């Protein structure tokens, strides 16, 4: 079932009015797994709840296939129970007074599917999601991971048109989170349901999504496949959100580009901007002794070590240039290696391969592809 959202706008009125969703357009293909990604307050959960019918938007349309579920102009608003949905909540939301079997069977009862047909559907989904042995227990007797698998079963049992996930892994500990995430992934691969998945975790988003919609202040910042977003983040904001945590603002000078008066070498852009911000991941920042020549094809600058943490196979080193902190993750090397001996106050040469650096103009838009960065 395809989902079409047009011009959706939702405001929260209170002491101060907040625009949670701002004229949002979104199309979800049949069978697609779409991830809404963004920090808290960006409107992703509100969007999901509007699709579910749990919130009512002020403007816009929502349609499943050719069936309009919400249209502010025509005053159509189909209640959640008539939208043929499945939903998995962060808090699991299993009803504590019902057994697992009753919890899973509830969406069937509301759809008037009873008797052996219902039993068969429950068994089927329980086998798929590995909850068969839990059917006669109560939710309070289950662990968090088991509870979320039951919630998943409940969301899928009635073969809904659309399955909604509201940060379903956030309440699980790290190990279980990976486990349940891969289960959701393989279930989607097998069943091919259409899904909208809300998360603030980029790892989850990259792993699960057919496409990611990165939201900011109620608007779409970028909508693309995980690979595209990872390789070509459209804006400074997106880059920051998918792990390019190092950010340097640089200014154009006669002698080249500088950051707070410190020279940054290797930068040249096909742009008129006088200032840029350049982004990179910690893993892509290499460190070397300042006496060594800068490696070719890199953007590099002199920096000072602030802190160095031992991470087993790697070292997490924090350096500063002109007061800005840059994180670097470098191989730890063998005992006694140069990387392991780094100390606060030491001068280093930091370098990043051009391909791994993204530059953004004054308004945060990506500047060209980094291939076009020219040697200074």
């Amino acid at each position: 079932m395809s989902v079409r959202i047009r011009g959706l706008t939702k405001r929260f009125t209170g002491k101060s009015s907040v625009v949670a969703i701002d004229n949002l357009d979104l199309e979800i293909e049949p069978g697609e797994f779409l991830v809404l990604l963004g920090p808290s307050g960006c409107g992703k959960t509100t969007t999901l709840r509007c699709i579910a019918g749990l919130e009512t938007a002020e403007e816009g349309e929502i349609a499943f296939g050719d069936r309009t579920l919400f249209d502010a102009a025509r005053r159509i608003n189909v209640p959640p129970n008539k939208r043929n949905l499945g939903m998995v909540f962060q808090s699991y939301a299993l009803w504590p007074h019902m057994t697992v079997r009753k919890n899973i069977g509830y969406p069937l009862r509301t759809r008037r599917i009873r008797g052996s047909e219902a039993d068969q559907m429950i068994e089927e989904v329980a086998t798929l999601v590995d909850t068969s042995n839990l059917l006669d227990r109560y939710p309070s007797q289950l662990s968090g991971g088991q509870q979320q698998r039951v919630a998943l079963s409940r969301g899928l049992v009635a073969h809904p048109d659309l399955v909604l996930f509201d940060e379903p892994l956030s309440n699980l500990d790290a190990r279980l989170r990976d486990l349940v995430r891969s289960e959701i992934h393989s279930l989607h691969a097998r069943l091919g349901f259409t899904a909208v998945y809300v998360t603030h975790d980029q790892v989850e988003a990259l792993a699960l999504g057919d496409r990611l919609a990165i939201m900011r202040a109620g608007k779409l910042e970028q909508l693309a496949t995980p690979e595209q977003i990872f390789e070509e983040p459209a804006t400074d904001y997106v880059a920051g959100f998918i792990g390019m945590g190092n950010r340097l603002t640089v200014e154009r000078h006669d002698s080249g580009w500088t950051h707070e008066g410190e020279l940054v070498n290797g930068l040249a852009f096909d742009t008129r901007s006088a200032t840029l911000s350049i982004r990179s991941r910690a893993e892509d920042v290499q460190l070397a002794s300042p006496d060594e020549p800068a490696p070719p094809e890199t953007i590099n600058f002199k920096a000072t070590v602030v802190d160095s943490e031992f991470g087993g196979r790697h070292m997490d080193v924090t350096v500063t240039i002109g007061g800005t902190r840059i994180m670097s993750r470098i191989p730890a090397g063998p005992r006694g290696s140069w990387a392991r001996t780094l100390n606060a106050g030491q001068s280093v040469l930091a370098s990043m391969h051009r391909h791994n650096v993204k530059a953004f103009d004054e308004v945060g838009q990506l500047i060209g592809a980094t291939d076009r960065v020219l040697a200074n």
Partner: protein
Amino acid sequence: MIDAAHSHMTSRPRLLPLDRVVPRLTLFLFIGALGYLTVVPLVRLQVLALEHGGRAYSDAFSAPGIWKTVATTVELALGSLAIALVFGTGLAWAATTLSPRLRLLRIIPILPIVVPAVASVLGWTFLFSPHPGYLNQLLRHLPWWSHQYNGPVDIYSIPWIVIILGLALTAFIYLFVSAGLENISGELLEAAEVSGSSPVGVFFRVTLPLLRPALVYGTGVGLLLGLGQFTGPLLLGRAHNINVLTTQMFFATQQIPPQYNVAAALGSPLLLFGLAVLVLNRFLLGDHARFVTHGGKSFRSGARSSRVGAAAIVTYGIVATALPIIGLVLVAVSKFWTGSLHPSQFTLINFHTIFNDAGIQKGIRTSLVTSVIAIAIALPAGYVAASFLRRRTHRIARPILDFVVAMPLSIPAVIFGVGFLLTYTTRPFVLYGTKWVFVLVYVTLMIPFSTRMQLSGMVALGDTYAEASRVSGGGVLRTNFTILAPLMRATFGGAVALMFILLANEFAASLLVRSPTTQVMGTALYDYFGNGLYPQVACVALVMIGVTGAGVLLAIAVGGSDIFNKL
């Protein structure tokens, strides 16, 4: 994916207008019905009072002694409130120092709320009536009072009325402050302590400021209750002609013909004050979130668990609850109330008498039947009201409902009594003389409690269970009946028990709407009192306490020992 379920979900491209109209209509009918119950009697009273150019007002406030009455009303309210604030806050603090073993003691300071006011006031009378009071007689054995014929305590004098009322109000302040203390996370206090504050410093710099909303609210409600006091002044004030506005209202309705207009005019200051507190409360504490300190550990006072706290609570329990009950028991088992005790002549004949008295039997029955019916109405009504109040939609209807629901709590029951008496002795619904007028009064008085308790139950439950049901295809009715109602069983039980206690105790409004043929326990007791049949009066009072006590035990069994904190 096989779309097995889809055939069951008929596609509906457009909602019928009916689907939008019906819920709204229901809401407005509901608010209308509640509004009729609560607002109409008050409006009719005012209309009557303002007739003929507001003659009732000039009559009421030019009567001789009226300003003394007003002054007495304020004096009693402020005096008892001062006592209650000191003792109530102190006891609430003491309760936090109780060791886990003694935690059940926390219920003791609440008992004066559940002991019927008529019963405890009578108990005090039997102990401290100037000449025959048992404790007065005992005190006169002491050398410095041995020469007196009366006293040393005169329960009928203003200072002692203030003390009695103050002891009763203490329970309410205790309740509000305890609830406030419970909402303060223990980590906040620990943070202050490790930052170098002494326990006393923590109390004044952190605890007290965080308690502000509870104290403001408690003071407001305490003042309302103090100004609206009826039972105490009615039973104790007659001897020295001490009058307050509520008693004067009652006397006005007892005139022939009844002067409802004068009663209404006399009630207006209390009505206005009640409405002002209601509005101010909304205004001052509107942003409750600022005071929500939940999270982390529950409140623990810096003080070590101490025996002093336990001793204070037990002492209060003995003085405020046990003593008056002892007074009642002594009189109930005596042939006459003479002041001297003759244990050899103790008898149960009085209980025999009252249980064979058709009037009393009928009173008990009417009390039970009207209470049960009223609860059966108030519980679902409160559920519906709480459901609407819980939602953020209905921008206009919601505050109106909120107001209507809260009103009976902030307006003295006597005013409602007069309003109901007026409204239901005249058309269109002439119900006076039937038990239905009690039912309506009781429903009105219980709506705030029913709504508040269920609202707090719903808040505690959260939204996700209901949302999970809605997205699973459950409609509004199915969601409420199969998901929410079963999950709120404990809340329902607690609310039922609480309402039962309050209704079994109800006296002020009942006294106004009763008729010679339709009485409830409290009003039957008042008649016995008027006839001077003290031993029987004491017996009826004990029966009332017994019925209420059963309700309390039920409430605690169903809702847990902190059930009264949800008031």
